């Protein structure tokens, strides 16, 4: 007998195109993006990179008494998004021991650390002691559990660009097994320094030299002219809840997760695997007791990778998903790396709730034209059953089915 599906009862997010769910919804509907050359301290150097950076964060007033000066941008973004999700799910009414936390993302505070090192590069003896906390990803767990009084289990996990979705999958397991009644998932903001930007660029993963004269056109998943992912700052938080627990307390049900899947390729490298992607889609459909024809929206990984996008479409075609509508959320948010999986599930939930599919920017000439693309204008539609996909370096393939509750 199948367990009752995990329910999603809260969400919050900060992105470059909106610092709460309402603002993000509006931007998704309009098809807004804010890509430009990035200027954040410690990210821009002699070479400039295209991306989407957050405007100044508006910290919730409840944290006024707490000194956040040693917290990284990743931690602050987590607090803002978690506050939204906490309020949305009304978690103040849930016993702290019943609530757990998983932070999706590893090594996410790189720019912050690099800035601390640069500040004392001539006197390492005077490195800020808080560096000893910041360099461990458990720092974000510690800050979030302290400020929100979470007393269930809390840990961080790493899964490259699939970190956020992998965290959702682990949270779904925790609440369906009964280990926790509520599990909060933070898809942490991956704060890139100029070192990581250079490395991604050298690797050929990050674009765009091709559109250096036109930053707003650089992010173009699935388009023939794509030349790599374009980074976007962001953090997404989801609240997953044990089915019966959510129903008993009358929680607002935003979505349900009937099935998930994780498949490893057995490959350390960044290259995708068609076999792995096919397998993860087949497994998630099986685990959700669905067939391809049941899926009426796909939120693909769609990073803008030259090889990755092509492989992804092949996998969708071979699993019978060529006709399901799909768009590219990263064309609006940019690629938030560790946060991407959470942000894209949030985008899926917003579209399900509000009955639309957002446009895909710069999808002028899709690499395969016979898919059911949402291109320049949004579609008004009713989505009941969706599929969200995330793929990560190191041969990681993850998939989550999401249904209307």
């Amino acid at each position, binding site marked *: 007998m199948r367990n009752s599906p995990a329910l999603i009862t809260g969400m919050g997010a900060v992105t470059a195109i909106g610092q709460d769910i309402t603002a993000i919804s509006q931007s998704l509907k309009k098809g807004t993006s804010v890509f430009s050359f990035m200027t954040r301290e410690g990210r821009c150097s002699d070479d400039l990179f295209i991306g989407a950076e957050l405007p100044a964060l508006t910290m919730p007033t409840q944290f006024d008494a707490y*000194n956040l*000066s*040693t917290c990284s941008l990743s931690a602050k973004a987590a607090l803002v998004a978690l506050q939204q999700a906490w309020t949305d799910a009304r978690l103040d009414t849930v016993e702290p021991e019943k609530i757990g936390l998983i932070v999706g993302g590893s090594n996410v505070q790189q720019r912050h650390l690099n800035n601390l090192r640069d500040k004392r590069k001539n*006197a390492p*003896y*005077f*490195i800020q*002691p808080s560096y000893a906390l910041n360099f461990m990803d458990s720092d974000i767990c510690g800050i979030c559990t302290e400020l929100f009084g979470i007393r269930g289990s809390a840990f961080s996990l790493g899964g490259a660009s699939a970190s956020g979705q992998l965290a959702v999958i682990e949270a779904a397991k925790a609440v369906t097994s009964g280990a926790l009644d509520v599990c909060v998932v933070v898809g942490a903001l991956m704060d890139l320094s100029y070192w990581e930007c250079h490395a991604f660029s050298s690797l050929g993963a990050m674009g765009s030299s091709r559109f250096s004269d036109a930053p707003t056109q650089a992010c173009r998943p699935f388009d023939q002219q794509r030349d790599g992912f374009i980074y976007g700052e962001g953090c997404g938080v989801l609240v997953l809840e044990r089915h019966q627990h959510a129903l008993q307390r009358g929680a607002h049900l935003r979505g349900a997760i009937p099935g998930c899947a994780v498949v490893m390729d057995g490959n350390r490298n960044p290259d995708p695997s068609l076999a792995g992607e096919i397998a993860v889609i087949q497994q998630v459909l099986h685990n959700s007791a669905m067939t391809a024809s049941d899926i009426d929206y796909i939120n693909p990984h769609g990073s803008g990778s030259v090889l990755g996008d092509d492989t992804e479409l092949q996998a969708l075609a071979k699993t019978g998903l060529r006709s399901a509508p799909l768009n590219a959320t990263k064309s609006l948010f940019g690629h938030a790396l560790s946060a991407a999986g959470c942000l894209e599930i949030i985008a899926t939930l917003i579209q399900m709730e509000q009955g639309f599919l957002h446009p895909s920017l710069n999808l002028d000439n899709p690499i395969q034209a016979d898919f059911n693309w949402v291109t320049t204008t949004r579609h008004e539609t009713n989505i009941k059953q969706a599929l969200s996909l995330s793929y990560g370096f190191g041969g990681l393939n993850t998939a989550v089915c999401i249904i209307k509750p």
Partner: protein
Amino acid sequence: MNIAVNVERSRVQAVVLDCIRQLVPTLQDHTFKQGDSLAALGMNSMERVEIIVDILAALSLRIPMTDTMSATNLDELIDLLHDRLNRR
């Protein structure tokens, strides 16, 4: 280590208070009193060592962190730092 000997105590005090105010924005307008301590001002252990290191860096005074722990309040800390600076 290029700070000259005979650093004025008032200079040390200014550095100490400036570092505290930079790390703790809520103390921007605080009037420090004799006997104030970092702990009594609401700083946790992490914030206290963060401030001490900032102060030591601003004074270019390389001493073990544990040497500063005998100071029970800001006055004693300023005296201790002043003494160590002028002992070099």
